[in-house]
């Protein structure tokens, strides 16, 4: 940046300003990381330790947070007594199933939409994006009635289909933007060299493969983190991790240790996936509007 090359003289105002900036960054850092740290720490505490707090106004007592003997009981309990292994499998099947269906069909449609010009294309695209933007609760009202009458409530296929309502339009929309950036000249050249259209499509596959992979991951993320569909449509036979976590809240006492452990189990895999597709994340979360 050009401004770096300009000689700056130190003045009290300027150094005060930079102290403020650093302070702001530190506060923002703590604000972002602290809840995550507390979640992780609490998941290893037993109930007595988890409820320990210093006296109000006793700033020196913050150390209490780290004063505990780590225990893995909550995790063990979740997987042995609470069947979290099953729920994890349900979550994985539902989100991965929907992601694969969506991205497979979506990439075909996106390619066609990117290469073809026809009347009504704008309306079609508008329909697709507004399907994706529809509020989950509003979609769920009629979907619940339909699924109830066709016996899909409480089954994994039902949940996969429900997730596809938001994953498929997302995949079509975002992959269209992706194919738009691949020059048609590549396919043309392949066609001139005697390829048929399938083979020409295969030529550009290596160019789009990383993106397609990243958007599969993103679709998995959307499905994995969903709660509303899972709680209404998946209730009973297809319980996923978020729903199982919410069920740890019992009228008599809320099992905070287990909830935090369940939170860690639900969150950590997604964080790793997020880091994995970091390059495509902003593009994906903004529906392709912003590219880095």
């Amino acid at each position, binding site marked *: 940046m*050009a401004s770096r090359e300009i000689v700056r003289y130190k003045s009290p105002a300027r150094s005060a300003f930079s102290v403020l*900036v650093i302070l*702001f960054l530190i506060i923002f850092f703590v604000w*972002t*990381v602290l*809840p995550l740290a*507390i*979640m992780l720490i*609490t998941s290893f505490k037993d109930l007595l330790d988890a409820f*320990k707090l*210093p006296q*109000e*106004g*006793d700033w020196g007592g913050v150390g209490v947070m780290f004063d505990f003997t780590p225990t893995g009981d909550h995790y063990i309990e979740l997987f042995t007594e609470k069947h979290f292994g099953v729920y994890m499998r349900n979550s994985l099947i539902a989100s991965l199933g929907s992601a694969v*269906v969506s991205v497979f*069909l*979506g990439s*075909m*449609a996106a390619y066609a*939409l990117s*290469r*073809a010009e026809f009347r009504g294309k704008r309306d*079609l*695209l*508008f329909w697709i*994006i*507004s399907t994706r*933007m*529809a*509020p989950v*609760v*509003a979609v*769920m*009202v*009629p*979907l*619940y*009635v339909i699924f109830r009458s066709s016996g899909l409530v409480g089954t994994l296929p039902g949940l996969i289909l429900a997730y596809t309502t938001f994953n*498929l339009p997302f995949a079509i929309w975002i992959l269209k933007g992706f194919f738009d*950036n691949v020059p048609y000249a590549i396919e043309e050249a392949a066609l001139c060299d005697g390829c048929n*259209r*399938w083979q020409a499509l295969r030529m550009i596959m290596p160019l789009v493969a990383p993106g397609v992979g990243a958007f599969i991951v993103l679709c998995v993320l959307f499905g994995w983190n969903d*709660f509303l569909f899972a709680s209404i449509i998946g209730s009973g036979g297809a319980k996923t991790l*978020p729903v199982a976590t919410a069920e740890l809240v019992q009228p008599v006492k809320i099992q*905070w240790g287990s*909830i*935090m452990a369940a*939170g860690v189990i639900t*969150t950590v895999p997604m*964080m790793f996936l*997020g880091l994995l597709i970091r390059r495509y*994340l*902003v593009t994906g*979360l*903004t*529906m392709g*509007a*912003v*590219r*880095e």
Partner: protein
Amino acid sequence: MAVNTIDSEPPELSAYRGVRRIDHTPHIFNNQPARYYLMWLLLPAILLLAAISLYPFVWLIYMSLHEVQLAPGKSDLWAGIDNFTRLFSDKSFARGWVTLFKYSALCLSVEITLGVLVAVILNNSRLEKLFITIFLMPMMMAPVVAGFLYMFLYNGTFGWYFWLLRSLGVLDGGSILGNKTWAMAGVVATDVWQWTPLIALITLAGLKRVPQEQLEANMVDGAGPLRNFFSVALPNLYPFLLIAILLRFMDNFRFIDTILIMTGGGPANATKILPTYLFDVSFKFFELGRGAAIAFTLLLLTILLGLALTKIFEDPTRKIKTSGTE
């Protein structure tokens, strides 16, 4: 048409003339106009999408005109536009809209301010990489888990944020999620925690597109960093911020998981935004006909937002995609 004459002449003659003949039959796909081939690629996805979105939409309209009976054997009663007219006298419905806009306005103003500030500070600094990695973490968390986490932090007997607020002397007693004002602030804070990073990332992407020449020219003319930001960087950021605002607003009423977990709309309906009310009507009281009418009004807002978004996407002058080749 030399090729054709060779194609149509008998092979013996070609051999006689010493012309090497390539036997080429065009592949079946190449033989047809491209649009059929593309249509077959497009069709499966469109049919599936129609089945899971258009068909339910038709159902939604049907339901909004009926009194839906969930018990087996009973048939739905025709209600006409009763479900809609009842909305006008429904105070919770109107309040739901007001709360929704209040909630979104609070979330967005804080998120945009903080996000832009953080992005401007971080841009081109050594800490950029580290912070971007940290930013990812809250965004990847399931909203339900975030809701529980903050519920834990706000708890009146062992919550760390509760303790912090009490120690600072800001909170007068009572609990955070039990007080009308504080509950709204608590819910907004959760959203801010989760999604400010996204705004910061979008702004960072935008800042990378600000033309350096303009900044330099402005500086040569004697502008300080603050002036530079407001008169050069910010106008260049507008399209990015607009997208951020639209998307966040959309998500504010798409996802209600956190609110549902933390307050369920309470206390005294202080955080009952319209989708939460819709959830209660449809899946607590199971008045699906009325729910469908409410859902219909929500979908209208969605369509308006969708129109705005597609406008932005199609605007050829917008600066976002210009250098967007990956």
